[in-house]
């Protein structure tokens, strides 16, 4: 018999957020209600849904916010199921205050043409997520700052290599798995973008890891739901619902 939970807590990137689950290009908060963690919340019979994922989030951010959110103990461990979606290793979150200080008195506004909606993380946490595919240009008073030029190039030169990033994500996965267990949270970790085939340090047989070395939500959905593939590489609610069913069945079988 499946254990009942009152709360489901989720953290991760745009796939956990549910970006584009409603329609092409959609980044609105309503997408969270059509993301796979929401369907899993329903299947587990939860009444409270906390989805703190951000579009573009880095693994370091996902790790930090989860540690911060769950050590404040607002969600009792015995009543809460945790879903973490680990993302692509090659992402970074930078101090937005420092970056935007290049344009005096400039504060990016998600609602204005100068500030893209990607900056929800700046509004909430004064940071900015950057990945190799993002385009972020800010122009004001004839001053232009270009995240592509100033951040992505630096990261590509100095930190975005697998031999540096893979151990970083491995250590965070190990630490968070043990931490959640120690605190008493039942949990599941999935890959959202890419599997970790070269992992040297993770135990793929750990019951809290769903296909951590062999598959990801993106890879699975691309193969299984190609017609639901959206304009910006995410998937419709149909793929999310189906993935939630797979996770629910996995959780049931592992807990038997």
């Amino acid at each position: 018999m499946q254990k009942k939970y009152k709360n489901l807590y989720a953290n991760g990137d745009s796939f956990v957020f549910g970006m584009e689950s409603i329609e092409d290009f959609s980044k609105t908060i309503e997408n969270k209600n059509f993301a796979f963690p929401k369907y899993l919340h329903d299947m587990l019979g939860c009444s409270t849904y906390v989805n703190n994922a951000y579009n573009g989030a880095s693994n370091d951010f996902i790790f930090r916010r989860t540690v911060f959110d769950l050590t404040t103990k607002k969600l009792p461990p015995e009543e809460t199921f945790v879903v973490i979606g680990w993302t692509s290793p090659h992402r970074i979150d930078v101090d937005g205050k420092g970056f935007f200080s290049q344009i005096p008195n400039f504060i990016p506004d998600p609602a204005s043409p100068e500030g893209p909606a990607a900056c929800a993380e700046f509004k909430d946490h004064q940071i900015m997520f950057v990945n190799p595919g993002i385009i972020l240009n800010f122009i004001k008073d004839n001053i232009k700052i270009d995240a592509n030029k100033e951040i992505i190039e630096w990261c590509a030169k100095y930190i975005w290599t697998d031999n540096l990033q893979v151990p970083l994500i491995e250590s965070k996965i190990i630490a968070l798995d043990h931490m959640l267990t120690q605190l008493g949270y039942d949990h599941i970790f999935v890959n959202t973008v890419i599997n970790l085939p070269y992992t040297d340090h993770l135990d793929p047989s750990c019951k809290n890891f769903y296909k951590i070395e062999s598959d990801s939500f993106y890879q699975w959905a691309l193969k299984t739901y190609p017609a639901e593939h959206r304009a910006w590489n995410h998937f419709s609610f149909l793929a999310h619902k189906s993935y939630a069913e797979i996770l629910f069945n996995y959780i049931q079988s592992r807990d038997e």
Partner: protein
Amino acid sequence: MNKKTVYANGDSFVFGMEILGDDSRDPANKDLSFVKKIADSMSADYINNAYNSATNEFIFRKTLIDLEKLKQDGIAPADVFVIIGWTALHREEIVGKYLLDYYHAGYSYKFKSDSQEYTDFGTFFISPSHSQKMRIVANGTVQTIDLIGPAAEFCSMCLWDDDFQQEKLETKILALQNYLEHNGYRYIFINTCCTLGSSKLINFDSPKLFQFNTSFFDWGKKYFPNSLKLKNHFNETAHIAFAKLVIDHINQNSL
């Protein structure tokens, strides 16, 4: 009864840099570091995997990966005492290859680094206050380059913010504490040279965080100013005295 092991990780203060002499980075310094003296007091085997200039991110990941390996090798967590020296907030680990290729633009070059992290991992640790002078021989010409310039400007603008970095450190401390407790490791965390603001997450008064509001460096400067070496580390006298403080604390609190 199984033989105990002390596992240590951290920065140059844990490494024991300069104990053997000004600017000495010889691994033999590790045998004189305060953590070795703590290991001796426990009659324990001694593993010191600290690196000079290590980042907190590196210390976190290397500790986890090392301890997982120790478990796989059959060393029971209950037989291991873990000592972590957390370091300054503003440090970064970068991959060395691009930097070296950049300076030599297609020429073949020979490069031998004094930085152990480059030898072991192909990376360099950089920080705002340390110059990283590298001597490189390329096509018969000797060049000295400073790694800090091209890489650190970006870090100063986009990464090295106090609040941002403290949140990163605090979550690592909390996660590592939980990892160690879940596995049954005994441990103590030491602040080697970090200046911390007030914390929303961490209880600095925990006996497992040794005098976390101050640091080994600040303590050493105050009580052993004459022990200070060329590159701001301490001689063995200060390490012996600091080890005694930590040993007394461990015993008094039954850690």
